[in-house]
């Protein structure tokens, strides 16, 4: 038992943090938001130079051969900078689905190209809304029974990009011909992997975002003067920030518990993923809201980044199930339905 990063994990965390801090600037994110929601050169650098497009895929499939903890580390760093890239869609949804439920052939066909960034992949559930669907080449689609691989380049495939509250992860609405789609061999395994890995990756994104909200607000509170004092000297502000930190530290425990449990195939891995998704995305929404509140008027302007966090926090809450839904799963898993 050692619930702390290994040296290698600490190095990955440092590398990822540095990478996004340098490249995922507000200006570039806003340019991507105004375009199709992907900072293409960021994505290229991430997959090619950093080589982390397949962080959690086996080396045999072109990945880095690392685990969920490392995936969470990367997602946390991306979330901290609201990076506009299809990391969640590809690495945490589509690829794990293909890896867990695909045939060898399907894995060989797609996973190396997803890892390299050559193919942008995403996932759509019953509502046929796919994050980053507008730019995706490949869709894994849950029809309720089957799990299908749908290619963008098939003539029957149509994607309508929808104006989306979180423009760093715009949804596309998918139309396709099911008879032309290719089913995954083991839909249950694919579905389970997507649910669990997706939930943890979103939770990690939320953790990174929430921590940024806190960090930036602490900085602002130390600079902004009202009533002849920095606003960070007011106890109401201090306590609000302290409460953010309390929640964030719990979210951090949740994310890495869930990631570890996934890597170790622990018996509580499902419970942990639900807990992490519910807790971390609630925390993010609250911290992003508090960020706006504590910035006052300036936090309500388009030019300030606060609303980028606020919008992504909302997207993190609802994608793959709301916090209420995940808590209900926890209630079920701990046996509330058993007879007394």
């Amino acid at each position, binding site marked *: 038992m050692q619930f702390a990063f290994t040296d290698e994990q600490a190095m990955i965390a440092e590398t990822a943090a540095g990478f996004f801090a340098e490249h995922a600037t507000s200006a570039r994110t806003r340019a991507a938001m105004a375009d199709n929601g992907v900072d293409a050169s960021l994505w290229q650098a991430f997959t090619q130079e950093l080589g982390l497009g397949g962080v959690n895929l086996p080396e045999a499939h072109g990945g880095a051969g690392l685990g969920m903890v490392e995936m969470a580390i990367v997602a946390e760093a991306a979330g901290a900078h609201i990076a506009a890239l299809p990391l969640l869609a590809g690495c945490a949804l589509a690829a794990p689905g293909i890896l867990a439920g695909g045939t060898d052939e399907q894995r060989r066909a797609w996973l190396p190209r997803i890892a390299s960034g050559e193919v942008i992949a995403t996932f759509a559930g019953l*509502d046929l*809304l796919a994050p980053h669907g507008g730019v995706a080449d490949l869709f894994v689609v849950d029809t309720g029974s089957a799990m299908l691989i749908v290619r963008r380049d098939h003539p029957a495939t149509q994607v309508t990009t*929808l*104006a*989306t*509250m*979180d423009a760093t992860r715009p*949804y596309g*609405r998918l139309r396709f011909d099911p008879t032309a789609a290719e089913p995954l061999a083991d839909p249950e395994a694919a579905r389970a992997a997507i649910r669990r890995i997706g939930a943890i990756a979103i939770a990690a994104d939320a953790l990174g975002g929430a921590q940024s909200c806190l960090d930036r607000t602490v900085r602002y509170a130390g600079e902004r*003067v*009202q*009533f*002849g*004092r*920095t*606003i960070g*000297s*007011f106890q*109401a*502000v201090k306590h609000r920030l302290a409460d953010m930190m309390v929640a964030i530290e719990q979210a951090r425990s949740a994310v890495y518990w869930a990631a570890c449990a996934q890597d170790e195939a622990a018996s509580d891995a499902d419970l942990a993923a639900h807990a992490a998704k519910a807790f971390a995305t609630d925390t993010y*929404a609250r911290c992003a*809201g508090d960020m*706006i*509140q504590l910035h*006052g*008027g300036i*936090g*309500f*302007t*388009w*030019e300030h980044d*606060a*609303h980028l966090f*606020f919008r992504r926090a*909302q*997207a993190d809450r*609802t*994608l793959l199930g*709301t916090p*209420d839904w995940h808590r209900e799963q926890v209630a079920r898993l701990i046996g509330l339905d058993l007879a007394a």
Partner: protein
Amino acid sequence: MKLGFDPDEEAFRAEAAAWLEAELTGPFADLRGITSLTAMPDRRRDWERRLGEAGWSCVGWPTAFGGRGATLGQQVLFAEEYARAGAPPRLNHIGVELAGPTILAFGTDAQKQHFLPPIAAGEAIWCQGYSEPNAGSDLANVRTRAWRDGDAWVIEGQKVWTSLAQFSDWIFVVARTQEGSRGPKGLSFLLVPVDQPGVTVRPIHQITGEAEFNETFFDGARTPADHILGAPGAGWEVAMALLGFERGVSTLAQQMGFRNELDAVIAAARANGAARDPLIRQRIAQAEIGLRLMRYGALRMLSGDPGPAAMTYKIQWATWRRDLGALAMTVLGVAGEVADAEQATSAQLAHLFLYSRADTIYGGTNQIQRNLIAERALGLPREPRGDLS
């Protein structure tokens, strides 16, 4: 205590309702149901004029200044009928509800004669120049300066969050007229025409993407010497009194807008089945209760001697509306986050979700409101002022 209305009040209600219905199915049908504060400004200016013409613009004002001399009960009923009819947001809200009552309270007879009838007639649209980049919550930290130059005031400085300034004819400006003064002392309350070379209005884009607010720059702006409310240097008292008028009958009209928003959430929940979710039901019920309590709180305030309880209203409604925005998104789920031609409700509620984050900030943040309540209503010690400039 009595909540019901008398027959003569009900007769007034019927008259108002009939007039509104005729106008809003007739010449102003295009304005019915509009909720945006920035939509169709020209037509809404026409509407202000029409209200004035028919005597429905400032129903509580004395008839001498273009009002209708309505009783409190009548004002309450008019506010409700106005909203019930789906009449648009008042383009001159600030003139009618804030500038007007302040001029009524602090103006000289000549000022009242000069300024009030054009407001009632819909000819003079007003906006508010309080906040500055370094005087947000700290309203008294005003740096905009004004000085006398012959028979005029000259104004230099910058205001921010001047809501609707782009449509306004007049702005009231809190400016520092006593050099070297600090805090609330040495300020004056000036009435300044917007359409002049010395005034520049620049929109601020807010997190919804719209530009309802502005920065307003004063660069040698001028206004006649007698366009000052209260004595020179006594502007703080005027400015604070004005904030009190925000808690008047207009709160009821505001609440009818909230009613529409809550109804939209309820309709969405019934449409998508969320209304069957016990968690959603609790939150909708709590929102319903909160809205009702705002109404009865307002009626208590208006009915007599509310005492310091009135100070609780701002934080109440702001928090309520922010929570409603969050509830709306919970009801809608992912569908609330995407623009979809088939879902007008979704766009309205997504806008509410984003916009309502400002409610707990402008007009005094929730934190400032709690300070005010603690210090003025509960008598607790004041926050010490620091010595950073």
